[in-house]
């Protein structure tokens, strides 16, 4: 998994509640058997016009956000299906952190598994970041996982929570499966008891 430590970047705003995984990566693009190749299809129905040209009205297509690595979204971001293709697509689009007031559970888990940091801030903090990102261009924030803060150069300083285990995995880029395999004996003994019962 990719490490996440500290990131300063332009913020791209997507001011909609309940952005669902069908929007993030529509079903016709879920047929690949690889983990890659999804980025160009992210937000497909919003991002492209009928003939495949970028939709100038879709905010993430604007030049001023083209280098953004941080996305700020509305509440309940990532609702819907369990498709991990959604975080894969967002990461390929260039995003490494998403800020919102809330995330759907499965999506949030999937992000954590890939080093895409979901950051939950209060409504007023998200509103502030959203408004500043929408205004002008070049608005940046710094997301620091170690100190669990989001800051900008206009006085914003927001704290966020993160599970200590997940935090460590993200900081170190650790593989969950590897950590669990080290508990092999515990699994073996659980299985022995289980087999005796069933």
């Amino acid at each position, binding site marked *: 998994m990719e490490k996440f430590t500290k990131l300063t970047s332009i913020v791209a705003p997507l001011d909609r509640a309940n952005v669902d995984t069908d929007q993030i990566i*529509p079903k016709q693009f879920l*047929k690949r058997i690889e*983990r890659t190749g999804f980025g160009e299809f992210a937000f497909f129905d919003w991002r492209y016009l009928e003939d495949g040209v970028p939709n100038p009205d879709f905010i993430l297509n604007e030049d001023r956000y083209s280098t953004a690595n941080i996305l700020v979204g509305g509440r309940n971001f990532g609702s819907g299906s369990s498709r991990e293709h959604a975080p894969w697509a967002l990461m390929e689009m260039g995003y490494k952190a998403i800020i919102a007031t809330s995330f*759907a*559970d499965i999506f949030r888990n*999937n992000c954590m*598994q890939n080093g895409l940091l979901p950051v939950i801030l209060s409504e007023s903090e998200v509103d502030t970041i959203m408004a500043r990102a929408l205004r002008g261009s070049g608005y940046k924030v710094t997301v620091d996982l170690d100190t669990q803060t989001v800051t900008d150069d206009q006085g914003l300083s927001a704290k966020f929570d993160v599970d200590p285990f997940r935090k460590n995995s993200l900081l170190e880029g650790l593989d969950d499966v590897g950590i*669990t395999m080290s508990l092999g004996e515990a699994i073996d003994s659980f299985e022995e008891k289980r087999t005796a019962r069933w």
Partner: protein
Amino acid sequence: MAKTMFEKIWEQHIVAEPEGQPALIYIDLHLVHEVTSPQAFEALRITNRKVRRPDLTISTVDHNLPTDDTRNEDIKDPIARVQVDTLRQNCKDTGVVLYDIDSAAQGIVHVIGPEQGYTQPGMTIVCGDSHTSTHGAFGSLAFGIGTSEVEHVLATQTLRQAKPKTMEVRFNGELKQGVTAKDMILAAIGKVGTAGWTGYVVEYTGDAIKKLDMAGRMTVCNMTIEGGARAGLIAPDDTTFDWMKGRKFVPKGDDFDAAVAEWRELASDEDAEYDELLEIDCDTLEPHVSWGTNPGQVAKITDRVPSPDDFEDPADVSSAEHALEYMGLTGGTSIEDIEIDRVFIGSCTNARIEDLRSASLIVKGRTVASSVRAQIMPGSTLTKMLAEKEGLDTIFKDAGFEWRESGCSMCLGMNPDILVPGERCASTSNRNFEGRQGKGGRTHLVSPEMAAAAAIEGHFVDVRDWETD
């Protein structure tokens, strides 16, 4: 101390709880399908890891399959074909059983698990699919996971989970004729919104739940994820045990009796405490129809489509504006006046034999409106065969329905069954997201009875007024 059913199952499955880490939970049953598994098997290959318990893992093909008469030919879409073939090869390489296209046990993964008797009370069940919550209808702790977690379960038969909070959702009273499990869950999600249960495991209780048949309970649990909770549970009882008895992988004879005795212990203790309670009155419940682009945007059949100004929260106002524009609807329109082009009876929410029987009673002796194309995709091949034995296919075909093969089909349109832009569909599935059933397609979520009646009339009607033989 008194415990909830969730707490009992949770505690029975803790493998380890190392300091500062989420609990490691043992998984009793891992369901696999073609869409969310190839990258997980590939990761095992790269890291030289094995499937730890192929005997606790089953798979089927459901998302990509055509439901027309090309079904037994090679899938035309080359990328979809590779995905299906990849699952075949992965199962062959790892010893995981596969219910392939030619098997009677093939079907939507959340239909076949219970149908074959794999799903049992007290189990932990996962699948790379958010509607895994379906299996909670049997009193099993069942939830959807992503592909990295699929890999984790394949390799270790465990999952790391932070312990969720619990919520009791109590359905009081009694459903009236024509009001169904689908209306119960749509009403509940309409009340709490699509994130109302985030972070919780929901236990459904109350008289109306106790009276539901297993198909109805599965419908309710299936859509738990649409309220944001990963898992929904219903205490197993005689309805559960009667439904399970005799199914292929359910214990037989004395073993069955012993299992039942154990399963009865799973129900929440009488004085167990939940973190939250939500109550819903079923005496006054009406058939529901979704009008928007998420499953929380629902209305009663006797209501009108809301206007954005009916909402207070600015995010809800903006959501309603977007939804009405996408759906091509105007606030104030009577729900009964919404005309439809398509009807889809199918999906892991509502394509079981009981659903097809209910819909057939509405359809019997009537004809689908000439403006409507109506299709039925049974939840499994076995369901289809059973329905044909009962003559349901004839009832549907005589009325003008297309009687198709099983699969996820137009619930999410990964196969060739999709809406064209602007088409409006009465659908028994679970999600009405933009583009879900096809780009520009407009989905209204309803019960099988409501979908069947809409097919006949060409617009939504109050199925409570419907006369059946």
